[in-house]
């Protein structure tokens, strides 16, 4: 659906995107992830053929975004950053206007507007003036606008920014429900969001792509060093002695917790799971075990790791 090859965008004196390549298959939900200023918005603007690329080619549904701009624009629904709308228009009127602008006929646009308003939960506010709506509703109007002409590709630039947790949840639900029927490209700098919605993530930093994979694979990448935490009621010396005999433990750390419990952090040697061994040990010695967890490396760690400036690595 999207084919980006060696895309570079230079503004006067500044390179916003430098030589990136990625592709998105039909029906996928892909997250473009990165801190502010990573080049996400610029990439999306080029994809929606609002800005020209300095070099490289971008194809959407097989059409070049520069030379076949109209064909591309016909097939995309784009919601830019900050979701700009006409504040003086009414919700239904605005969506109708947008539908007509996107080439839908009179009857078809009426049908589609009704459908997307239901889909986005806007039916109650259809006669309200956009400028007087809450941010959550305005965001949904932007989403409804992106969906109204049933585009093949939906590009959403920071769709959940500035919403309260409730609204974020409903917007996420909505986006998830689009999978399969539409291809969706979302940009965000919030990790759990991408983790929840996307089938694949492209991590950008400083105009470059640092990693591109499924959330699970990105996690696996990090699992080699994932720790085990156990809380055991025993004397620290006994624990130290027992752990040093376990062959799979690379290093361990025992610290006092409340009461007679000790908090033990164990790092495995080569990505193996230490939990059964720790449980067996506790049973054998008759220790009371009250917690045994493997700290799952959240994407947060991956994100922090890959977006860390070079010198710190």
């Amino acid at each position, binding site marked *: 659906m999207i084919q980006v090859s060696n895309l570079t965008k230079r503004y006067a004196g500044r390179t916003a995107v430098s030589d990136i390549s990625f592709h998105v298959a039909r029906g996928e939900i892909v997250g473009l992830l990165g801190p502010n200023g990573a080049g996400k918005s610029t990439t999306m603007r080029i994809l929606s053929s609002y800005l020209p690329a300095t070099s490289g080619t971008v194809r959407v549904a097989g059409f070049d975004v520069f030379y076949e701009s109209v064909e591309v624009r016909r097939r995309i629904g784009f919601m830019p950053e900050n979701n700009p709308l*006409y504040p003086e228009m009414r919700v239904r009127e605005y969506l109708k206007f947008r539908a007509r602008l996107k080439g839908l006929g009179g009857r078809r646009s009426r049908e589609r507007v009704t459908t997307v308003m239901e889909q986005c939960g806007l039916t109650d506010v259809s006669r309200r003036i956009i400028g007087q709506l809450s941010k959550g509703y305005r965001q949904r109007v932007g989403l409804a606008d992106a969906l109204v002409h049933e585009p093949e590709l939906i590009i959403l630039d920071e769709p959940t920014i500035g919403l309260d947790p409730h609204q974020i949840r409903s917007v996420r639900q909505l986006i998830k429900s689009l999978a399969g029927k539409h291809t969706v490209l979302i940009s965000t700098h919030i990790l759990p969001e991408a983790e929840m919605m996307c089938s694949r993530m492209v991590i950008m930093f400083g105009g470059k792509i640092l990693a591109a994979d499924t959330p699970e694979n990105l996690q696996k990448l990090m699992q080699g060093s994932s720790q085990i935490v156990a809380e055991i009621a025993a004397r620290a010396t006994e624990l130290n002695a027992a752990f040093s005999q376990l062959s799979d433990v690379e290093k361990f750390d025992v610290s006092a917790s409340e009461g007679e419990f000790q908090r033990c952090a164990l790092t495995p040697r080569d990505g193996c799971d230490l939990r059964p061994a720790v449980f067996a040990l506790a049973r054998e010695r008759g220790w009371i075990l009250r917690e045994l967890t493997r700290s799952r490396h959240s994407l947060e760690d991956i994100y922090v790791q890959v977006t860390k400036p070079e010198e710190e690595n």
Partner: protein
Amino acid sequence: MQIFGTLLRRELAAFFLSITGYVIIASVTLLTSLSFVVLIAGVGTNSFTAPVTEMFYSTFFFWLIVLLVAPVITMRLFALEKSAGTFETLMTTQVGDLQVVAAKFAAAIIFYMVAWLPMLVCLLIVRHFTNQSGALDAGTVGGMYVGIFLTGCLFLALGCFASAISRSQMAAAMISFVLGVSFFSLGFLAKSIPVTAQWQTQALSYFSLFDQMDDFARGVVDTRTVIFYAGVTFFFLFLTLRVVESRRWK
């Protein structure tokens, strides 16, 4: 065509469904009525042979209105969309650049003509009280509105260009005001340079909007003038189009 119609409707709605639109109409009406009062006071004391429409232009109010109102009407067109970000949502649909420029200009000229309609009432009042059809015939009124339309096209095209090159409405209004006043002043230059400078006088006389409007008010529609106005209008609309396109230049 559907897209042009949709855009035009939206632009007109932005004028007529906003307080700004009605402030503009009210201001134009106030100024025309004021000029009308000045005119009537003058007629009361002196005897005039010229048609009422012609006298109307001699009050300078007309130019004040055109020079002031055109920038106010056009400043919003592109600058507001750019600063609000809606330009991005607009230009990432399948609309063409030409359609956008044409629809915005058409909406501006329609609104501008509507703002001039209350003046007809002033003319009807004259007709009612003088009972002379000669004071006010269809030819002079028609000529006058053709004149208003053509000057409107010219100044609104300047305004569109000014709005397209800036992100701030204030800057757009200032640029278009300055362009308009400079254009207007060029005509007076013809009167002050020596007559020996043949072709210069000839060239500058085309810019003499004041004299041309006098002709229109007398009901004289000169083809040269019409071509001049249309030409300048198209030139500035063309520049506007290029500015809108320039975003996509590599």
